[in-house]
């Protein structure tokens, strides 16, 4: 029951999965969860039909600083050329 944890939700392109995860671990996260997704945004429709055309959703639970640091890094690296959505919301971790 730690206080002040945040949930960072990243939606981006499937081909970036391994790279993003390396960066997330590098920045000190102690866990992450990935699910497959599809969607539509500024970079057009991503139908999820094949890897080139699919999204992933990565969730990381951690401190405010960690979440901000990950956002800053991913924004800097990928925002210009890849589909990207970054969301933060507070959560209670119960274990």
């Amino acid at each position, binding site marked *: 029951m730690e206080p002040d944890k945040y949930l960072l939700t990243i939606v981006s*392109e499937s*081909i970036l999965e391994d790279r993003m995860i390396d960066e997330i671990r590098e920045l000190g996260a102690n866990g992450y969860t990935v699910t497959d997704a599809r969607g539509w945004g500024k970079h*057009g*429709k991503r*139908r*999820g*039909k*094949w*890897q*080139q*055309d*699919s999204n992933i959703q990565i969730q990381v639970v951690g401190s405010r600083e960690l979440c901000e640091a990950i956002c800053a890094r991913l924004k800097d690296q990928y925002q*210009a*050329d*890849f589909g990207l959505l970054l969301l933060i919301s507070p959560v209670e971790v119960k274990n």
Partner: protein
Amino acid sequence: MAFEPVVLFFLLGVIAGLAKSDLKIPTAVYEALSVYLLLAIGITGGVKLAESTLLPLILPGLAILLVGCLIPLICYPVLQYFGGLKRADSASLAAHYGSVSVVTFSVAVAFLAQAGLDYEGHMVVFLVLLEIPALVVGILLARAGMAGKTRWGKTLREVFFGKSIFLLIGGLIIGFAAGPDHIGPLEPLFFDLFKGLLAFFLLEMGLVAAAKIADFRYYGKFLIGFAIVMPVFSAVLGVFLGWGLGLSLGGTLLLATLYASASYIAAPAAMRIAVPEANPALSIGASLGVTFPFNIFVGVPLYFWMADLLYSMGG
């Protein structure tokens, strides 16, 4: 002329996609079938290679590669100056059109089988070899005169261990190692089912391509024209080169098809990593939405007709 029913499956898929049918082929099956096709093509080539001698292939091989490097070098200025496309987009498209499409190649192989013609087994080796230089040329074109932040390491690994090249080479080696003597038990899967599973795969490709075909008005006249004229031009190069090198009629058709085809698996993956600022919708749209259907419906028979003409005149 040989009629090849597998292309009808592509048409069926396109119609389903355009009509927003609820027909869906799950991604998992699409991916498994693409692994299968790459392996099967590789193994078939490997077995054929095991029966032939490699040494006399080196010189013609070099010629084929050289022309393969030429194609993106021709595409690039055309796209940049006539099409007015950005540097990165021109380079990426050049790489796509210099590279090759395994499924288009497979359709041409099926076409030859239907027509009862044989071909040189080492064409599959060229299928593998031709994937690579075009990608490298494309990246160099995109990066020329830029602050050198090219991730060559990542990109080359992407190319060689990207599934297309990796499975083709892996299949070649396995087919070569097994040879005609030990391949027997693998034949029912990798040879007998090839046509049927290609048909199934084309159905799925039709569904995927439908979305690109529907976006077609956004591509602009120039890009559509390019996506049709460029393949024919490349095929002409291939027909003359094949004939010049003394390939069989079947081998020449395959060479022309290789040159004419545009990648939509290996190149998109490699370009997304190496030239991320290029717009992938443009290159996949052109290669999958225009060139691929053009090639399988019109191109392959046309290239065959051209080759046949040359062989009957020149031969």
